[in-house]
Protein backbone atom coordinates (compact mmCIF):
# COMPACT_ATOMS: atom_id res chain seq x y z
CA UNK A 1 0.00 0.00 0.00
CA UNK A 2 1.15 3.48 -0.78
CA UNK A 3 1.33 5.75 2.29
CA UNK A 4 -0.26 9.14 1.75
CA UNK A 5 0.54 12.06 4.04
CA UNK A 6 -2.68 13.88 3.29
CA UNK A 7 -6.10 13.23 4.77
CA UNK A 8 -8.85 11.68 2.63
CA UNK A 9 -10.58 15.04 2.36
CA UNK A 10 -7.41 16.72 1.10
CA UNK A 11 -6.72 13.89 -1.30
CA UNK A 12 -10.23 14.07 -2.66
CA UNK A 13 -9.98 17.84 -3.14
CA UNK A 14 -6.67 17.43 -4.97
CA UNK A 15 -8.19 14.68 -7.07
CA UNK A 16 -11.18 16.81 -8.05
CA UNK A 17 -8.89 19.71 -8.86
CA UNK A 18 -6.87 17.52 -11.15
CA UNK A 19 -10.05 16.36 -12.88
CA UNK A 20 -11.28 19.94 -13.20
CA UNK A 21 -8.00 20.96 -14.78
CA UNK A 22 -8.50 18.23 -17.39
CA UNK A 23 -5.40 16.35 -16.27
CA UNK A 24 -5.86 12.58 -16.71
CA UNK A 25 -6.03 10.29 -13.72
CA UNK A 26 -3.55 7.42 -14.11
CA UNK A 27 -3.60 3.93 -12.51
CA UNK A 28 -1.12 4.78 -9.74
CA UNK A 29 -2.79 8.06 -8.76
CA UNK A 30 -4.90 8.27 -5.66
CA UNK A 31 -8.60 8.07 -6.49
CA UNK A 32 -11.77 7.85 -4.46
CA UNK A 33 -12.92 4.26 -4.03
CA UNK A 34 -16.29 5.16 -5.55
CA UNK A 35 -14.54 6.58 -8.63
CA UNK A 36 -12.62 3.33 -9.04
CA UNK A 37 -15.76 1.22 -8.63
CA UNK A 38 -17.75 3.41 -10.97
CA UNK A 39 -15.04 3.10 -13.62
CA UNK A 40 -14.78 -0.67 -13.25
CA UNK A 41 -18.54 -0.88 -13.66
CA UNK A 42 -18.55 1.30 -16.74
CA UNK A 43 -15.43 -0.04 -18.47
CA UNK A 44 -16.26 -3.69 -17.85
CA UNK A 45 -19.81 -3.09 -19.06
CA UNK A 46 -18.31 -1.55 -22.14
CA UNK A 47 -15.94 -4.51 -22.63
CA UNK A 48 -18.76 -7.02 -22.18
CA UNK A 49 -20.80 -5.09 -24.73
CA UNK A 50 -18.07 -5.49 -27.32
CA UNK A 51 -17.84 -9.19 -26.62
CA UNK A 52 -21.57 -9.95 -26.43
CA UNK A 53 -21.96 -7.71 -29.48
CA UNK A 54 -19.96 -10.28 -31.44
CA UNK A 55 -22.94 -12.65 -31.27
CA UNK A 56 -25.68 -10.86 -33.23
CA UNK A 57 -23.37 -9.97 -36.08
CA UNK A 58 -21.41 -13.20 -35.83
CA UNK A 59 -24.75 -14.87 -36.47
CA UNK A 60 -24.36 -13.92 -40.15
CA UNK A 61 -20.68 -14.63 -40.83
CA UNK A 62 -21.31 -18.13 -42.18
CA UNK A 63 -24.28 -16.87 -44.22
CA UNK A 64 -22.91 -13.60 -45.64
CA UNK A 65 -24.07 -13.22 -49.25
CA UNK A 66 -20.70 -12.67 -50.95
CA UNK A 67 -17.10 -13.51 -50.24
CA UNK A 68 -16.22 -9.85 -49.84
CA UNK A 69 -19.05 -9.27 -47.34
CA UNK A 70 -18.05 -12.37 -45.43
CA UNK A 71 -14.50 -11.12 -45.04
CA UNK A 72 -15.59 -7.61 -44.07
CA UNK A 73 -17.98 -8.96 -41.47
CA UNK A 74 -15.52 -11.44 -40.01
CA UNK A 75 -12.88 -8.72 -39.78
CA UNK A 76 -15.38 -6.45 -38.09
CA UNK A 77 -16.41 -8.98 -35.48
CA UNK A 78 -12.71 -9.68 -34.95
CA UNK A 79 -12.20 -5.96 -34.28
CA UNK A 80 -14.89 -6.14 -31.63
CA UNK A 81 -12.98 -8.89 -29.89
CA UNK A 82 -9.98 -6.56 -30.05
CA UNK A 83 -11.99 -3.73 -28.51
CA UNK A 84 -13.06 -6.08 -25.75
CA UNK A 85 -9.40 -6.80 -25.09
CA UNK A 86 -8.38 -3.11 -24.91
CA UNK A 87 -11.21 -2.44 -22.52
CA UNK A 88 -10.61 -5.44 -20.27
CA UNK A 89 -7.01 -4.25 -20.22
CA UNK A 90 -8.04 -0.73 -19.21
CA UNK A 91 -10.26 -2.11 -16.43
CA UNK A 92 -7.47 -4.37 -15.20
CA UNK A 93 -5.40 -1.29 -14.41
CA UNK A 94 -7.96 -0.66 -11.67
CA UNK A 95 -7.16 -3.91 -9.90
CA UNK A 96 -9.74 -6.33 -11.24
CA UNK A 97 -8.99 -9.38 -13.41
CA UNK A 98 -10.62 -10.34 -16.68
CA UNK A 99 -11.77 -13.60 -15.11
CA UNK A 100 -13.50 -11.69 -12.28
CA UNK A 101 -15.21 -9.41 -14.77
CA UNK A 102 -16.43 -12.37 -16.82
CA UNK A 103 -17.70 -14.02 -13.69
CA UNK A 104 -19.61 -10.87 -12.78
CA UNK A 105 -21.16 -10.93 -16.25
CA UNK A 106 -22.24 -14.54 -15.90
CA UNK A 107 -23.70 -13.91 -12.46
CA UNK A 108 -25.67 -10.93 -13.73
CA UNK A 109 -23.73 -8.43 -11.57
CA UNK A 110 -22.29 -6.74 -14.65
CA UNK A 111 -24.32 -5.59 -17.61
CA UNK A 112 -23.72 -5.14 -21.30
CA UNK A 113 -25.42 -2.94 -23.88
CA UNK A 114 -29.08 -3.92 -24.13
CA UNK A 115 -29.12 -3.39 -27.87
CA UNK A 116 -27.47 -6.77 -28.32
CA UNK A 117 -30.49 -8.51 -26.83
CA UNK A 118 -32.35 -8.00 -30.08
CA UNK A 119 -32.07 -10.71 -32.75
CA UNK A 120 -30.46 -10.32 -36.18
CA UNK A 121 -33.14 -11.82 -38.40
CA UNK A 122 -31.97 -10.86 -41.86
CA UNK A 123 -28.80 -9.80 -43.64
CA UNK A 124 -30.03 -6.20 -43.58
CA UNK A 125 -29.81 -6.28 -39.80
CA UNK A 126 -26.05 -6.60 -40.11
CA UNK A 127 -25.91 -3.41 -42.18
CA UNK A 128 -28.25 -1.56 -39.87
CA UNK A 129 -26.24 -2.57 -36.80
CA UNK A 130 -23.08 -1.29 -38.47
CA UNK A 131 -24.72 1.93 -39.47
CA UNK A 132 -27.08 2.82 -36.60
CA UNK A 133 -25.68 0.97 -33.62
CA UNK A 134 -22.08 1.84 -34.40
CA UNK A 135 -23.07 5.47 -35.06
CA UNK A 136 -24.72 5.61 -31.67
CA UNK A 137 -21.70 3.98 -30.06
CA UNK A 138 -19.41 6.51 -31.72
CA UNK A 139 -21.47 9.48 -30.54
CA UNK A 140 -21.06 8.17 -27.02
CA UNK A 141 -17.43 7.18 -27.41
CA UNK A 142 -16.30 10.45 -28.94
CA UNK A 143 -17.31 12.15 -25.73
CA UNK A 144 -15.54 9.41 -23.76
CA UNK A 145 -12.24 10.12 -25.49
CA UNK A 146 -12.06 13.01 -23.02
CA UNK A 147 -12.97 10.89 -20.01
CA UNK A 148 -10.87 11.62 -16.94
CA UNK A 149 -9.28 8.17 -16.55
CA UNK A 150 -6.20 7.93 -18.79
CA UNK A 151 -6.28 4.24 -19.82
CA UNK A 152 -10.01 4.42 -20.61
CA UNK A 153 -9.56 7.60 -22.61
CA UNK A 154 -6.73 6.10 -24.64
CA UNK A 155 -8.70 2.89 -25.31
CA UNK A 156 -11.57 5.06 -26.54
CA UNK A 157 -9.35 6.97 -28.94
CA UNK A 158 -8.20 3.72 -30.55
CA UNK A 159 -11.68 2.23 -30.60
CA UNK A 160 -13.28 5.33 -32.12
CA UNK A 161 -11.03 5.15 -35.14
CA UNK A 162 -12.08 1.60 -35.88
CA UNK A 163 -15.73 2.20 -35.08
CA UNK A 164 -16.05 5.02 -37.56
CA UNK A 165 -14.66 2.67 -40.18
CA UNK A 166 -17.30 0.08 -39.20
CA UNK A 167 -20.01 2.68 -39.34
CA UNK A 168 -19.09 3.58 -42.92
CA UNK A 169 -18.98 -0.11 -43.79
CA UNK A 170 -22.48 -0.57 -42.37
CA UNK A 171 -23.77 2.34 -44.39
CA UNK A 172 -22.01 1.04 -47.49
CA UNK A 173 -23.47 -2.43 -46.87
CA UNK A 174 -26.97 -0.96 -46.94
CA UNK A 175 -26.50 0.97 -50.17
CA UNK A 176 -27.03 -1.97 -52.55
CA UNK A 177 -30.12 -2.90 -50.55
CA UNK A 178 -31.51 0.61 -50.58
CA UNK A 179 -31.02 0.87 -54.33
CA UNK A 180 -31.78 -2.80 -54.99
CA UNK A 181 -34.85 -4.91 -55.71
CA UNK A 182 -38.18 -4.35 -53.92
CA UNK A 183 -37.31 -7.35 -51.72
CA UNK A 184 -34.00 -5.79 -50.73
CA UNK A 185 -35.57 -2.41 -49.99
CA UNK A 186 -38.23 -4.08 -47.88
CA UNK A 187 -35.54 -6.02 -46.03
CA UNK A 188 -33.64 -2.81 -45.27
CA UNK A 189 -36.77 -0.97 -44.16
CA UNK A 190 -37.84 -3.83 -41.93
CA UNK A 191 -34.43 -3.79 -40.27
CA UNK A 192 -34.70 -0.01 -39.81
CA UNK A 193 -38.16 -0.42 -38.27
CA UNK A 194 -36.88 -2.94 -35.74
CA UNK A 195 -33.56 -1.29 -34.82
CA UNK A 196 -34.39 2.43 -34.70
CA UNK A 197 -35.97 2.57 -31.26
CA UNK A 198 -33.62 0.14 -29.57
CA UNK A 199 -30.75 2.28 -30.92
CA UNK A 200 -32.22 5.40 -29.32
CA UNK A 201 -32.45 3.43 -26.09
CA UNK A 202 -28.70 2.85 -26.18
CA UNK A 203 -28.13 6.30 -24.72
CA UNK A 204 -29.88 5.25 -21.53
CA UNK A 205 -32.68 6.79 -19.46
CA UNK A 206 -33.52 10.47 -19.54
CA UNK A 207 -31.01 12.56 -17.60
CA UNK A 208 -33.61 13.05 -14.88
CA UNK A 209 -33.84 9.26 -14.35
CA UNK A 210 -30.21 8.25 -14.71
CA UNK A 211 -28.74 6.78 -11.50
CA UNK A 212 -25.06 7.06 -12.19
CA UNK A 213 -25.00 10.31 -14.08
CA UNK A 214 -24.45 13.13 -11.56
CA UNK A 215 -21.31 11.77 -9.92
CA UNK A 216 -19.96 10.50 -13.24
CA UNK A 217 -20.29 13.97 -14.70
CA UNK A 218 -18.60 15.60 -11.73
CA UNK A 219 -15.70 13.17 -12.03
CA UNK A 220 -15.70 13.60 -15.77
CA UNK A 221 -15.94 9.88 -16.32
CA UNK A 222 -18.93 10.83 -18.40
CA UNK A 223 -18.65 14.06 -20.36
CA UNK A 224 -22.08 14.64 -21.84
CA UNK A 225 -25.56 13.68 -20.75
CA UNK A 226 -27.67 10.84 -22.17
CA UNK A 227 -30.21 13.22 -23.68
CA UNK A 228 -27.60 15.44 -25.30
CA UNK A 229 -25.92 12.46 -26.90
CA UNK A 230 -29.23 11.03 -28.09
CA UNK A 231 -30.11 14.35 -29.72
CA UNK A 232 -26.74 14.44 -31.51
CA UNK A 233 -27.35 10.98 -32.83
CA UNK A 234 -30.81 11.79 -34.17
CA UNK A 235 -29.59 15.02 -35.79
CA UNK A 236 -26.77 13.32 -37.62
CA UNK A 237 -28.70 10.20 -38.61
CA UNK A 238 -31.85 11.70 -40.18
CA UNK A 239 -30.05 12.98 -43.31
CA UNK A 240 -28.27 9.64 -43.69
CA UNK A 241 -31.60 7.79 -43.57
CA UNK A 242 -32.93 10.22 -46.18
CA UNK A 243 -29.95 9.48 -48.37
CA UNK A 244 -30.69 5.74 -48.12
CA UNK A 245 -34.37 6.47 -48.68
CA UNK A 246 -35.27 4.64 -45.48
CA UNK A 247 -38.19 5.91 -43.43
CA UNK A 248 -37.59 6.48 -39.73
CA UNK A 249 -40.42 4.78 -37.83
CA UNK A 250 -41.38 7.81 -35.73
CA UNK A 251 -44.42 9.94 -36.69
CA UNK A 252 -43.26 12.69 -34.30
CA UNK A 253 -39.90 13.14 -35.95
CA UNK A 254 -39.61 16.64 -37.43
CA UNK A 255 -37.13 19.47 -37.72
CA UNK A 256 -37.55 22.14 -35.06
CA UNK A 257 -36.30 25.40 -36.54
CA UNK A 258 -36.32 27.18 -33.21
CA UNK A 259 -34.22 24.59 -31.38
CA UNK A 260 -32.06 23.86 -34.39
CA UNK A 261 -32.60 20.14 -33.72
CA UNK A 262 -34.96 17.35 -34.68
CA UNK A 263 -37.85 16.70 -32.32
CA UNK A 264 -38.60 13.04 -31.88
CA UNK A 265 -41.12 10.81 -30.15
CA UNK A 266 -40.96 9.24 -26.73
CA UNK A 267 -39.10 5.98 -26.25
CA UNK A 268 -41.11 3.03 -24.97
CA UNK A 269 -39.52 2.97 -21.52
CA UNK A 270 -41.38 -0.17 -20.48
CA UNK A 271 -39.60 -2.03 -23.23
CA UNK A 272 -36.31 -0.39 -22.25
CA UNK A 273 -36.58 -1.51 -18.61
CA UNK A 274 -37.83 -4.98 -19.56
CA UNK A 275 -34.79 -5.59 -21.76
CA UNK A 276 -32.36 -4.02 -19.27
CA UNK A 277 -33.67 -6.25 -16.53
CA UNK A 278 -33.21 -9.40 -18.59
CA UNK A 279 -36.44 -9.99 -20.48
CA UNK A 280 -35.45 -9.08 -24.03
CA UNK A 281 -35.79 -11.62 -26.79
CA UNK A 282 -32.17 -12.76 -26.60
CA UNK A 283 -30.92 -11.87 -23.09
CA UNK A 284 -30.86 -15.40 -21.77
CA UNK A 285 -29.43 -16.84 -24.94
CA UNK A 286 -26.64 -14.29 -25.21
CA UNK A 287 -25.49 -14.99 -21.67
CA UNK A 288 -25.92 -18.74 -22.00
CA UNK A 289 -23.92 -18.81 -25.17
CA UNK A 290 -21.11 -16.71 -23.68
CA UNK A 291 -21.08 -18.90 -20.58
CA UNK A 292 -21.08 -22.04 -22.65
CA UNK A 293 -18.12 -20.95 -24.79
CA UNK A 294 -16.29 -19.89 -21.64
CA UNK A 295 -16.93 -23.20 -19.90
CA UNK A 296 -16.09 -25.20 -23.01
CA UNK A 297 -12.82 -23.23 -23.20
CA UNK A 298 -11.87 -24.01 -19.62
CA UNK A 299 -10.00 -27.23 -20.45
CA UNK A 300 -7.95 -25.30 -23.03
CA UNK A 301 -7.07 -22.53 -20.59
CA UNK A 302 -6.21 -25.14 -17.98
CA UNK A 303 -3.97 -26.95 -20.45
CA UNK A 304 -2.19 -23.67 -21.18
CA UNK A 305 -1.55 -23.03 -17.50
CA UNK A 306 -0.33 -26.57 -16.92
CA UNK A 307 1.90 -26.47 -19.99
CA UNK A 308 3.34 -23.12 -18.97
CA UNK A 309 4.11 -24.39 -15.47
CA UNK A 310 5.82 -27.50 -16.80
CA UNK A 311 7.89 -25.43 -19.18
CA UNK A 312 9.01 -23.08 -16.46
CA UNK A 313 9.97 -25.90 -14.11
CA UNK A 314 12.18 -27.59 -16.71
Amino acid at each position, binding site marked *: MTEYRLSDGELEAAFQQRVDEERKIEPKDWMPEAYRKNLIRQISQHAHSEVIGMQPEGNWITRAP*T*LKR*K*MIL*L*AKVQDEA*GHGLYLYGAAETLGVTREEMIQALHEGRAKYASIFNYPTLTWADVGVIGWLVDSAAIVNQISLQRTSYGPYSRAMIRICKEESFHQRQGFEMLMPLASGSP*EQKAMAQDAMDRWWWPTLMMFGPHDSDSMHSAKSMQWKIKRRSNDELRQDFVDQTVPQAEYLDLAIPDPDLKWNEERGHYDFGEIDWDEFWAVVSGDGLCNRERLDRHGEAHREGEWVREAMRAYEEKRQST
Partner: protein
Amino acid sequence: MTPSRALPEFVLALGDDSLVLGQRLSEWCGKAPFLEEDIAIANVALDYLGRAEKFYRYVSELEGGRRSVDEIAFLRDSRAYRNLLIFELPVGDFARTMARQFMVDAFHLPYLRRLSRSADARIGAIAAEAVKESRYHLKRSREWVLCLGGGTRESRGRIQRAFDALWGYGPEMFEMDRHEKALIESGVSVDRSALKAKWQASMTDLLAQAGLKVPDREWSIAGGRDGVHTEHHGYLLAEMQYMQRAYPGLAW
Protein backbone atom coordinates in the same frame (compact mmCIF):
# COMPACT_ATOMS: atom_id res chain seq x y z
CA MET B 1 -7.06 -33.39 -71.36
CA THR B 2 -6.16 -30.02 -72.81
CA PRO B 3 -4.08 -27.73 -70.64
CA SER B 4 -6.63 -24.95 -71.18
CA ARG B 5 -9.22 -26.96 -69.25
CA ALA B 6 -6.75 -28.30 -66.71
CA LEU B 7 -5.61 -24.89 -65.50
CA PRO B 8 -8.97 -23.48 -64.37
CA GLU B 9 -9.89 -26.86 -62.86
CA PHE B 10 -6.66 -26.90 -60.89
CA VAL B 11 -7.07 -23.35 -59.65
CA LEU B 12 -10.70 -23.97 -58.81
CA ALA B 13 -9.75 -26.90 -56.61
CA LEU B 14 -7.26 -24.73 -54.72
CA GLY B 15 -9.96 -22.10 -54.28
CA ASP B 16 -12.41 -24.68 -52.95
CA ASP B 17 -9.87 -25.95 -50.42
CA SER B 18 -9.37 -22.41 -49.18
CA LEU B 19 -13.01 -21.40 -49.05
CA VAL B 20 -14.22 -24.47 -47.25
CA LEU B 21 -11.57 -24.25 -44.54
CA GLY B 22 -12.08 -20.48 -44.22
CA GLN B 23 -15.79 -21.08 -43.77
CA ARG B 24 -15.18 -23.74 -41.13
CA LEU B 25 -12.71 -21.62 -39.17
CA SER B 26 -15.05 -18.64 -39.23
CA GLU B 27 -17.50 -20.74 -37.21
CA TRP B 28 -15.20 -20.25 -34.22
CA CYS B 29 -15.70 -16.50 -34.11
CA GLY B 30 -17.14 -15.69 -30.70
CA LYS B 31 -16.78 -19.25 -29.42
CA ALA B 32 -13.04 -19.58 -28.87
CA PRO B 33 -11.59 -20.45 -25.43
CA PHE B 34 -10.55 -16.83 -24.87
CA LEU B 35 -10.63 -13.53 -26.76
CA GLU B 36 -7.06 -13.60 -28.05
CA GLU B 37 -7.87 -16.91 -29.68
CA ASP B 38 -11.07 -15.54 -31.25
CA ILE B 39 -8.86 -12.96 -32.91
CA ALA B 40 -6.18 -15.42 -33.97
CA ILE B 41 -8.58 -17.98 -35.48
CA ALA B 42 -10.39 -15.19 -37.32
CA ASN B 43 -7.03 -14.15 -38.77
CA VAL B 44 -6.41 -17.61 -40.10
CA ALA B 45 -9.97 -17.81 -41.46
CA LEU B 46 -9.51 -14.46 -43.21
CA ASP B 47 -6.28 -15.65 -44.79
CA TYR B 48 -8.06 -18.67 -46.26
CA LEU B 49 -11.05 -16.65 -47.44
CA GLY B 50 -8.66 -14.19 -49.05
CA ARG B 51 -6.89 -17.02 -50.88
CA ALA B 52 -10.23 -18.38 -52.07
CA GLU B 53 -11.11 -14.98 -53.44
CA LYS B 54 -7.83 -14.72 -55.34
CA PHE B 55 -8.01 -18.21 -56.78
CA TYR B 56 -11.65 -17.77 -57.85
CA ARG B 57 -10.90 -14.42 -59.41
CA TYR B 58 -8.25 -16.09 -61.52
CA VAL B 59 -10.68 -18.88 -62.47
CA SER B 60 -13.24 -16.29 -63.45
CA GLU B 61 -10.69 -14.57 -65.68
CA LEU B 62 -9.54 -17.85 -67.21
CA GLU B 63 -13.17 -18.56 -68.06
CA GLY B 64 -13.45 -15.21 -69.78
CA GLY B 65 -15.71 -13.82 -67.09
CA ARG B 66 -18.40 -16.42 -67.68
CA ARG B 67 -18.95 -16.64 -63.90
CA SER B 68 -18.19 -14.10 -61.22
CA VAL B 69 -16.21 -14.92 -58.10
CA ASP B 70 -19.41 -15.18 -56.10
CA GLU B 71 -21.16 -17.33 -58.67
CA ILE B 72 -18.26 -19.72 -58.43
CA ALA B 73 -18.32 -19.69 -54.63
CA PHE B 74 -22.06 -19.75 -54.00
CA LEU B 75 -23.82 -21.32 -56.96
CA ARG B 76 -22.29 -24.75 -57.29
CA ASP B 77 -23.61 -27.85 -55.60
CA SER B 78 -21.65 -30.28 -53.52
CA ARG B 79 -20.73 -32.58 -56.42
CA ALA B 80 -19.15 -29.70 -58.28
CA TYR B 81 -17.07 -28.68 -55.26
CA ARG B 82 -13.59 -30.10 -55.48
CA ASN B 83 -12.09 -29.43 -52.05
CA LEU B 84 -10.18 -32.16 -50.23
CA LEU B 85 -12.14 -33.82 -47.45
CA ILE B 86 -9.87 -32.72 -44.63
CA PHE B 87 -10.88 -29.09 -45.18
CA GLU B 88 -14.62 -29.70 -44.91
CA LEU B 89 -14.72 -31.78 -41.72
CA PRO B 90 -16.63 -30.11 -38.89
CA VAL B 91 -14.55 -27.97 -36.51
CA GLY B 92 -15.25 -30.25 -33.56
CA ASP B 93 -13.66 -29.18 -30.29
CA PHE B 94 -10.62 -26.92 -30.07
CA ALA B 95 -8.29 -29.93 -30.18
CA ARG B 96 -9.90 -31.20 -33.35
CA THR B 97 -9.58 -27.80 -34.98
CA MET B 98 -5.93 -27.46 -34.03
CA ALA B 99 -4.97 -31.02 -35.02
CA ARG B 100 -6.50 -30.48 -38.46
CA GLN B 101 -4.80 -27.13 -38.66
CA PHE B 102 -1.41 -28.61 -37.89
CA MET B 103 -1.92 -31.33 -40.51
CA VAL B 104 -2.86 -28.84 -43.22
CA ASP B 105 -0.31 -26.19 -42.19
CA ALA B 106 2.52 -28.72 -42.23
CA PHE B 107 1.42 -29.60 -45.75
CA HIS B 108 0.73 -26.07 -46.96
CA LEU B 109 3.99 -24.41 -46.04
CA PRO B 110 6.30 -26.62 -48.16
CA TYR B 111 3.63 -27.00 -50.84
CA LEU B 112 3.06 -23.29 -51.24
CA ARG B 113 6.79 -22.61 -51.21
CA ARG B 114 7.10 -24.79 -54.27
CA LEU B 115 3.94 -23.47 -55.84
CA SER B 116 5.26 -19.93 -55.46
CA ARG B 117 7.76 -20.87 -58.19
CA SER B 118 4.98 -22.02 -60.50
CA ALA B 119 5.47 -21.41 -64.22
CA ASP B 120 2.12 -19.64 -64.02
CA ALA B 121 3.02 -16.24 -62.60
CA ARG B 122 -0.43 -15.58 -61.24
CA ILE B 123 -0.54 -18.81 -59.26
CA GLY B 124 3.02 -18.16 -58.13
CA ALA B 125 2.09 -14.74 -56.80
CA ILE B 126 -0.93 -16.02 -54.88
CA ALA B 127 1.15 -18.83 -53.40
CA ALA B 128 3.97 -16.48 -52.43
CA GLU B 129 1.55 -14.35 -50.43
CA ALA B 130 0.09 -17.45 -48.85
CA VAL B 131 3.51 -18.74 -47.78
CA LYS B 132 3.84 -15.87 -45.34
CA GLU B 133 0.44 -16.64 -43.88
CA SER B 134 1.04 -20.36 -43.62
CA ARG B 135 4.34 -19.81 -41.86
CA TYR B 136 2.45 -18.02 -39.11
CA HIS B 137 -0.37 -20.60 -39.13
CA LEU B 138 2.10 -23.44 -38.70
CA LYS B 139 3.92 -21.74 -35.86
CA ARG B 140 0.62 -21.35 -34.07
CA SER B 141 -0.86 -24.79 -34.70
CA ARG B 142 2.45 -26.42 -33.79
CA GLU B 143 2.54 -24.60 -30.46
CA TRP B 144 -1.04 -25.58 -29.76
CA VAL B 145 -0.36 -29.26 -30.42
CA LEU B 146 2.61 -29.12 -28.04
CA CYS B 147 0.57 -27.28 -25.45
CA LEU B 148 -2.44 -29.57 -25.58
CA GLY B 149 -0.24 -32.66 -25.70
CA GLY B 150 1.81 -31.45 -22.76
CA GLY B 151 -0.99 -29.78 -20.81
CA THR B 152 -3.44 -31.79 -18.75
CA ARG B 153 -4.70 -35.35 -18.96
CA GLU B 154 -7.86 -34.07 -20.53
CA SER B 155 -6.14 -31.96 -23.17
CA ARG B 156 -3.79 -34.80 -24.06
CA GLY B 157 -6.74 -37.17 -24.43
CA ARG B 158 -8.58 -34.72 -26.62
CA ILE B 159 -5.70 -33.93 -28.95
CA GLN B 160 -4.84 -37.62 -29.25
CA ARG B 161 -8.42 -38.48 -30.17
CA ALA B 162 -8.38 -35.62 -32.68
CA PHE B 163 -5.33 -36.97 -34.48
CA ASP B 164 -6.74 -40.50 -34.38
CA ALA B 165 -9.94 -39.29 -36.01
CA LEU B 166 -8.26 -37.11 -38.64
CA TRP B 167 -5.29 -39.27 -39.50
CA GLY B 168 -6.72 -40.93 -42.59
CA TYR B 169 -7.68 -37.62 -44.16
CA GLY B 170 -4.03 -36.60 -44.44
CA PRO B 171 -2.94 -38.75 -47.42
CA GLU B 172 -5.48 -37.14 -49.75
CA MET B 173 -3.42 -33.95 -49.62
CA PHE B 174 -0.74 -35.77 -51.61
CA GLU B 175 -2.97 -37.17 -54.30
CA MET B 176 -3.54 -35.43 -57.61
CA ASP B 177 -6.37 -35.55 -60.08
CA ARG B 178 -5.75 -35.62 -63.83
CA HIS B 179 -5.89 -31.83 -64.15
CA GLU B 180 -3.22 -31.27 -61.58
CA LYS B 181 -1.06 -34.06 -62.98
CA ALA B 182 -1.35 -32.64 -66.48
CA LEU B 183 0.16 -29.39 -65.26
CA ILE B 184 3.23 -30.82 -63.52
CA GLU B 185 5.39 -31.15 -66.57
CA SER B 186 4.95 -27.55 -67.62
CA GLY B 187 5.84 -26.49 -64.07
CA VAL B 188 2.44 -24.93 -63.37
CA SER B 189 1.52 -27.38 -60.63
CA VAL B 190 3.70 -29.13 -58.08
CA ASP B 191 4.13 -32.87 -57.64
CA ARG B 192 2.43 -33.32 -54.31
CA SER B 193 3.48 -36.93 -53.91
CA ALA B 194 7.10 -35.78 -53.54
CA LEU B 195 6.17 -33.91 -50.37
CA LYS B 196 4.56 -36.80 -48.56
CA ALA B 197 7.55 -38.39 -46.86
CA LYS B 198 8.68 -35.12 -45.37
CA TRP B 199 5.20 -34.33 -44.18
CA GLN B 200 4.90 -37.72 -42.51
CA ALA B 201 8.23 -37.16 -40.81
CA SER B 202 7.16 -33.77 -39.50
CA MET B 203 3.93 -35.28 -38.17
CA THR B 204 5.79 -38.09 -36.45
CA ASP B 205 8.31 -35.67 -34.97
CA LEU B 206 5.81 -33.29 -33.54
CA LEU B 207 3.52 -35.97 -32.19
CA ALA B 208 6.50 -37.52 -30.43
CA GLN B 209 7.54 -34.16 -29.03
CA ALA B 210 4.01 -33.58 -27.78
CA GLY B 211 3.99 -36.98 -26.10
CA LEU B 212 1.33 -38.30 -28.47
CA LYS B 213 1.11 -41.60 -30.27
CA VAL B 214 1.18 -41.78 -34.03
CA PRO B 215 -1.93 -43.75 -34.95
CA ASP B 216 -0.65 -47.29 -35.43
CA ARG B 217 -2.76 -48.24 -38.41
CA GLU B 218 -2.46 -46.32 -41.65
CA TRP B 219 -5.78 -45.59 -43.33
CA SER B 220 -6.89 -43.11 -45.91
CA ILE B 221 -10.12 -41.71 -47.25
CA ALA B 222 -10.36 -39.64 -50.39
CA GLY B 223 -12.94 -38.35 -52.81
CA GLY B 224 -13.00 -34.58 -52.56
CA ARG B 225 -11.38 -33.85 -55.91
CA ASP B 226 -14.06 -35.97 -57.59
CA GLY B 227 -16.81 -34.15 -55.74
CA VAL B 228 -17.50 -37.12 -53.49
CA HIS B 229 -17.74 -35.47 -50.09
CA THR B 230 -18.66 -36.25 -46.51
CA GLU B 231 -22.27 -35.77 -45.52
CA HIS B 232 -21.23 -32.61 -43.68
CA HIS B 233 -20.43 -30.85 -46.94
CA GLY B 234 -24.04 -30.30 -48.03
CA TYR B 235 -24.88 -28.55 -44.76
CA LEU B 236 -21.82 -26.36 -45.01
CA LEU B 237 -22.93 -25.27 -48.48
CA ALA B 238 -26.59 -24.89 -47.48
CA GLU B 239 -25.60 -22.42 -44.79
CA MET B 240 -22.95 -20.62 -46.80
CA GLN B 241 -25.04 -20.34 -49.96
CA TYR B 242 -28.32 -19.45 -48.28
CA MET B 243 -28.49 -15.81 -49.40
CA GLN B 244 -27.48 -16.42 -52.99
CA ARG B 245 -29.96 -19.27 -53.26
CA ALA B 246 -32.84 -17.46 -51.57
CA TYR B 247 -32.35 -14.22 -53.51
CA PRO B 248 -30.93 -15.19 -56.89
CA GLY B 249 -29.23 -12.64 -59.07
CA LEU B 250 -29.13 -9.71 -56.64
CA ALA B 251 -26.17 -7.50 -55.80
CA TRP B 252 -25.08 -7.30 -52.17
